[in-house]
C-alpha cells in the first residue's frame, strides 16, 4: 500500500489523505470533496468512511462553539484561515461550502476551534448510524481526544496573539524560533530522502515542522511563522502549558479513556498493517506505521514516518494540506499522552510509601521516551512500537507479551549489522540490553519475558565468533522461534491436552479473568461435548473476564458471570477452579492477575481443587511471600472511572481532587502455595512444591 518514495501519483494521495482525514475528521473534507471519494475508500489500507453526518456537523458546530469560546482570538483564526485559503486555491481544492472557518479549522494554527470541537466531535462521533463500521466510532473518539488535547495549544496561541501572558509569549517566540530553524532543517531533509532513523530523535519537532514548510512559501511570512509557532508551543513550552493543561486535562483524560478502550480492536489492525509493511522494507514500514500512528490508535514510530511522508509528498509536489494534516495527526497522539502523563502527579500516598520500591506507573509516549533516551536512533522502530503496545495494554498477558517480544527481537537481529571492529555477540548483547531497558520503561518485564531474554542472551553468548554474520543471525532467529514453539505453543497444547481430561460431565468450572490457556482448555472441553458450565469471575478495572465470557459463548458454553465480590456465593456450586498464571515462584507461590489469590483462597476454604495452567517457562527461581514485594502498578486512572456507570465516575473524580485520596491499582497478586492443588504444565501435573524440581531439571539440561 505504501508508495515507494519516488513514485507518487495522484492515486497514492488519497490514501494518505484518508489517513489524515481519519484523524482530523472535519479537517480534510474539502480535499476529499475535490478528490474522488470512492477512490479514497478503495485505495486506503483500512477502508475508512467518514459518516456524512459527522463530516457536516463537526465543522458547523465547531464554528459555533469556537465562536463563543474562542472569541478572544478571532483575529488569529481568521487570518490564518485566510492564509490557508490561498494555499488551497493553488491546489484547486477549495471547498467553497466550508469557507474560511473551515480552513481555519483545518489548519494547525486554528486549533482553538479544533479543540472546541473536542466536545462536539465526541457527540458527533456517536452520531453515525450503528451500521457503520465500529472503527469509525473509534476514529471519532480518538479524534476527540486529540482535539481535546490540543486545547492547551490553542490557549497558548490565543495568549500569544493577544499577548496576555508574557510567559506564553516567550514560549511562543521560542517556538517560533525553533520552528523557523526546523523549517530549514526539514526542507533540507526533504531534498534528500533522509534516513528515517534520524528522525525519531526529535519527533515532535519533525512532526510539526514537516507540516508547516510546504505552506510557508505560499503564505505570507508572518502568518506562516505564527502558524508554525503554535503547534510548536506545546512541546517546547511545557511550563506554560501546565496552566492551560489543567483545564483541558479532565475532558482529555475522559476522552483518552474512551479511546484507549475503543482502541483495542483497531490497534491490532493498525499493527498488522504496520507489520505487513515492515516485511517489505524498513523505511517504508516506518512510514506505514506512521500512518497507523496518525490514526491515533498506534503511536509507535510516527515521528520518522511522518517526516518521511512529508518528504515524499513534497517531492511529488502534491497538495500541502495533506502533509500538514499528517504532521498534526502524528503530533497529537504524542501530545495527548504527554498531557495525561503530566496532568496527574504522583500515583497515591500509599503507593508512594509502601510501593516506592516498585516502578511507578506513568503513561508512556513517544516524545517522553525519546526525551529520555538520547540515542533513540539506536532503538529499532519495531521495538518502539512494541514498547508502546505494552504501555497501552494492547499486548497483554504473559504469553502474548513474550511472543511479541521474541518476534521483535528476531526482527532486530535480522536487521542487525555488526559494526566494524566489534563482535556480533558483544555488540548485539549490548543492543539487546538497551532494548530491554527501553521495554522496561514502557512496562515492567514479566517473568516470562525475563526468562526468554535470559535464553536469548545465553544463545548470543554462545555464538561462535568465527561464524559468518549471516549464519549466526539465522541460527539465533532459528533458536528464538524454536523457543517460542517449544516452550509456548507446544507447551500450551500439552497443557490443554492434560487439563481437558480434568473437565468431566457435570462439572462447574470456575475461572478468573482471562487466561489464554484456560480458555483453550475450556474450548477444547466444549469441543469434546463435555457437559459442563463455567463460572467466569471478573474484576475491575481490566474486566478481562468479559473476553473469557465472549470466547466461551462462542464455543457454546453456558456461563455464569460474576464479580469478584460474589465469589463466596458462586463458589458453592463449583467443582473445580482453573486459573492461569503470570509466573510461578520456586516456593510454589503463583503470581496471577490481581484477584486470583482471592479466588484460590475462597476455593481452598470451601475445599475446591485449584488447578493452575502454566507453561514451565514461566517458572522462576525467585521466591515471594506476598504481593507487595514484587508487583506492578497499573494506571490509577483506570480505577477512577467505571465504564458504563457515569454516576459513579463523577463521584470519584471529585474525590480525587483531594490530596488525601489515593488510587492504587495493583496488577498482580501472589497466591500462596497452600491454595494450589496442582499446577498443570507441559511436563504433567505437579504439586506446587515441585516447582523447584522442574527448575533444577531445566537448569541441568
Amino acid at each position, binding site marked *: 500500500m505504501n508508495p515507494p518514495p519516488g513514485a507518487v501519483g495522484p492515486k497514492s494521495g488519497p490514501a494518505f489523505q484518508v489517513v489524515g482525514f481519519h484523524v482530523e475528521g472535519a479537517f480534510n473534507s474539502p480535499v476529499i470533496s475535490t478528490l474522488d471519494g470512492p477512490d479514497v475508500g478503495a485505495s486506503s489500507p483500512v477502508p475508512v468512511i467518514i459518516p456524512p453526518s459527522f463530516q457536516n456537523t463537526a465543522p458547523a458546530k465547531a464554528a459555533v462553539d469556537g465562536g463563543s469560546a474562542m472569541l478572544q482570538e478571532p483575529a488569529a483564526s481568521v487570518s490564518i484561515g485566510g492564509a490557508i485559503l490561498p494555499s488551497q486555491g493553488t491546489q484547486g481544492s477549495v471547498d467553497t461550502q466550508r469557507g474560511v472557518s473551515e480552513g481555519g479549522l483545518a489548519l494547525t494554527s486554528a486549533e482553538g476551534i479544533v479543540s472546541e470541537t473536542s466536545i462536539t466531535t465526541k457527540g458527533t462521533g456517536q452520531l453515525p448510524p450503528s451500521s457503520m463500521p465500529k472503527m469509525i466510532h473509534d476514529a471519532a473518539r480518538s479524534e476527540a481526544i486529540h482535539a481535546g488535547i490540543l486545547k492547551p495549544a490553542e490557549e497558548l496561541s490565543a495568549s500569544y496573539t493577544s499577548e496576555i501572558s508574557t510567559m506564553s509569549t516567550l514560549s511562543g517566540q521560542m517556538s517560533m524560533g525553533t520552528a523557523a530553524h526546523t523549517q530549514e532543517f526539514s526542507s533540507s531533509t526533504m531534498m534528500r530522502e533522509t534516513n528515517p532513523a534520524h528522525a525519531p530523535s526529535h519527533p515532535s519537532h519533525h512532526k510539526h515542522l514537516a507540516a508547516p514548510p510546504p505552506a510557508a512559501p505560499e503564505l505570507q511570512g508572518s502568518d506562516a511563522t505564527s502558524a508554525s509557532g503554535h503547534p510548536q508551543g506545546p512541546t517546547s513550552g511545557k511550563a506554560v502549558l501546565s496552566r492551560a493543561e489543567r483545564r483541558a486535562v479532565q475532558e482529555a483524560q475522559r476522552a483518552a479513556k474512551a479511546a484507549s478502550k475503543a482502541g483495542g480492536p483497531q490497534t491490532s489492525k493498525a499493527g498488522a498493517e504496520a507489520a505487513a509493511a515492515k516485511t517489505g522494507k524498513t523505511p517504508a514500514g516506518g512510514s506505514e506505521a506512521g500512518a497507523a500512528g496518525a490514526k491515533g490508535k498506534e503511536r509507535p514510530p510516527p515521528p520518522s514516518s511522518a517526516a518521511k511522508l512529508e518528504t515524499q509528498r513534497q517531492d511529488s509536489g502534491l497538495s500541502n494540506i495533506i502533509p500538514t494534516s499528517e504532521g498534526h495527526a502524528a503530533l497529537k497522539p504524542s501530545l495527548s499522552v504527554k498531557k495525561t502523563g503530566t496532568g496527574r502527579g504522583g500515583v497515591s*500516598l*500509599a*503507593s508512594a510509601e509502601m510501593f516506592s520500591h516498585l516502578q511507578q506507573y506513568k503513561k508512556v509516549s513517544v516524545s517522553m521516551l525519546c526525551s529520555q533516551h538520547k540515542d533513540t536512533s539506536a532503538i529499532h522502530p519495531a521495538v518502539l512500537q512494541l514498547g508502546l503496545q505494552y504501555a497501552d495494554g494492547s499486548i497483554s498477558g504473559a504469553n502474548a507479551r513474550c511472543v511479541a517480544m521474541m518476534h521483535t527481537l528476531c526482527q532486530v537481529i535480522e536487521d542487525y549489522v555488526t559494526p566494524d571492529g566489534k563482535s556480533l555477540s558483544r555488540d548485539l548483547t549490548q543492543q539487546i540490553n538497551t532494548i530491554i531497558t527501553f521495554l522496561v520503561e514502557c512496562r515492567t518485564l514479566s517473568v516470562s519475558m525475563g526468562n526468554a531474554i535470559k535464553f536469548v542472551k545465553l544463545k548470543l553468548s554462545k555464538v561462535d565468533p568465527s561464524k559468518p554474520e549471516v549464519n549466526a543471525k539465522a541460527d539465533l532467529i532459528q533458536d528464538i522461534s524454536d523457543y517460542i514453539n517449544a516452550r509456548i505453543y507446544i507447551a500450551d497444547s500439552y497443557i490443554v491436552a492434560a487439563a481437558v481430561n480434568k473437565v468431566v460431565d457435570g462439572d462447574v468450572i470456575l475461572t478468573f479473568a482471562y487466561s489464554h490457556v484456560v480458555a483453550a482448555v475450556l474450548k477444547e472441553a*466444549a469441543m469434546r*461435548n*463435555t457437559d*459442563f*458450565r463455567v463460572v467466569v469471575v471478573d*474484576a*475491575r478495572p481490566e474486566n478481562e473476564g*468479559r473476553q473469557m*465470557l*465472549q470466547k*466461551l*459463548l*462462542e*464455543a*457454546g*458454553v*453456558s*456461563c*455464569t*458471570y*460474576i*464479580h*469478584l*465480590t*460474589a*465469589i*463466596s*456465593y458462586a463458589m*458453592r456450586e463449583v467443582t473445580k477452579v482453573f486459573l492461569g498464571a503470570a509466573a510461578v515462584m520456586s516456593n510454589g507461590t503463583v503470581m496471577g*492477575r*490481581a*484477584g486470583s489469590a*482471592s479466588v484460590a*483462597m*475462597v476455593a481452598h476454604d470451601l475445599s475446591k481443587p485449584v488447578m493452575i495452567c502454566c507453561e514451565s517457562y514461566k517458572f522462576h527461581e525467585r521466591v515471594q511471600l*506476598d*504481593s*507487595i514485594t514484587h*508487583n506492578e502498578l497499573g494506571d490509577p486512572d483506570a*480505577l477512577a472511572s467505571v*465504564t*458504563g*456507570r457515569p454516576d459513579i465516575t463523577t*463521584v*470519584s473524580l*471529585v*474525590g480525587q481532587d483531594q490530596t*488525601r*485520596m*489515593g*488510587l*492504587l*491499582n*495493583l496488577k498482580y*497478586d*501472589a497466591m*500462596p502455595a497452600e491454595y494450589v492443588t496442582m499446577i498443570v504444565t507441559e511436563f504433567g501435573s505437579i504439586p506446587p512444591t515441585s516447582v523447584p524440581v522442574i527448575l533444577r531439571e531445566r537448569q541441568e539440561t
Partner: protein
Amino acid sequence: MLRRRQIEGSMPTCKRTAEIMRLMVTNQKYADADSLIDEIRAVGHKIQSAKPSELAIGNIVRRVLHIVREEAQQEAAEHGDEDEDDEQASHSGQHESNTRSQGMVGSRPSFAHNRAISLSNLLDVGMGDVELFEKMDKRQGVVAADNAIDAESLNSSMRRKPKGAPQWKRKQQVIEAINELIEELDNIQTSITIQGVEHIHAKEVILTLGLSDTTFHFLKEASKKRDFQVIVAEGCPRYDGRVMAKKLSESGVQTTLIADSAVFAMMARANKVLVGAHAVLANGGVICPCGINMVALAARKHSVPFVVLVGLHKLSPLFPHDPDLVYNDFRSPADVLDYDVLAEAFSHHLEGASGGASWSQQPATTAASAPATTSGTGSSTVPAASHHGAPTGKQPPAATFQCGPIVHAPNPAFDYVPPHLISLFVTDMGGYTPSYVYRLLAEFYDRNDYLLSKQLGM
C-alpha cells in the same frame, strides 16, 4: 415500602418498625399482655415477611415483645410481692399439684419459683421459665378445675384474669420502653463510634470494603485523635467503596482506593479490618455486604484482626442454615454485566443469523433452575444461530431459545461470614467475641419469640 426497597439499610428499617410498634401499642386497646403479644407478633411477622432478608425487623419486633413480656412479668411479680406469703404458698401448692398431676414438667415450677421472687434477674432462661410457668399456670387451672383438687392453684389462675383491667397502666410503661428503644437505636451510632479511639492506634493501616455508615463514623471519630490510613476496596458492583473513600478523604483521613481484586495483596500490609454488618446471627456469624467473606478469609490468612462494627439491633436469634441463599438478597444483573457488553459478546457469533433475539439472561434469583435448561455443549459446533442483545426486544422463538449457551449473572447482595473468621464485635454495648453472642441473645429476646411465624398459630 420494604418490598419496593424504598427503605434500605437496617437502621431506617429498625426505626420504622419500632415506630409502627409504638403506634400499635398506643392506639389499640388490649385486654391483657397475651393478646398484645399476639397482635405484635402477627404484625411483626407481616412486616418481616415483606423483606425476609432484613433480619433487623424481626429483631425489633422481638425486642418489643420482650418489653411487653417483661412488663407483664413484672406485674405478675408485683402481685406476688403484695402477698408474698400467699405467693409462696401458692407456688408450693402448685409444686405439689404439679408433681402429682403432671410429671413431665415436674421440676420447673420450683425453678420458676426462685425466679419469680428475684425480679432483678428476669433474664435468660428464667424468662422462658417464668413464661412457661404462667402458661402452665393456665393449664393448671383447667386441670385443677377438672380434678377439683387445689384451691390454691385455682386462686392463681383467677389472678391472671383481673390483669386485663390494670393493663392500661402497664401499656404506658410499654410505650415508654419502646420509646427508650427508639432512642437507643438513635444512639447506637455514637456509642459505637466513641469506641473508635480505643481500637485504633497511630499509623495503623485499616482495610475496609464498601460503604458502612457505622464504619465511616467510627473512623472519622478516631481520626480526630489518631493518625492512620484507610484502604478502601471499592465493593464492585455497588461501588459504594468509592463513596466511602470520598467521604473519608473529605473528612481528613488518608485514604487509598483499591480494586476488590487487590484485597488479598493489601491485606499483607493492613493492621486491622473494620467492616459493618447487615445482621449478626445466633451462632456469631454475620451477614455482610457481598465480598466481605473474601476479606475475612484474607484477614484470617494474614492473621489480621477482623472487627465487625455492629449495633445490637442487628442481633438476630436465627441460626444460619445455608445463609448464602436463605438470607440473601439479589440485585439487578445489569450492575454486574452491562447488557451492551453481552450484546456485543453475542453479536460476535451472530454471523448471518436471521433469527430473532434469544437472550436468556435469567433473573438472578432463579439461580438454581436456569443452568439446567440448556446444555451448552450441544451447540458447540453451531455457535448458536441467534444470540443477540436484549435491546431488540423481539420475542425469542422457542427453538432458538433452547440451543444457545446461557449467561447468568447473579448479583447477590450479602455474604455470610462464619464466626471463626471474626475476631471481635464492637457493639453499642461494648466489644464481644462471637462466642458470646448467644448470651447477648438471651439478654435481649425472649426465647418464645425466636420464631415469629411458628407461634402464630398457637
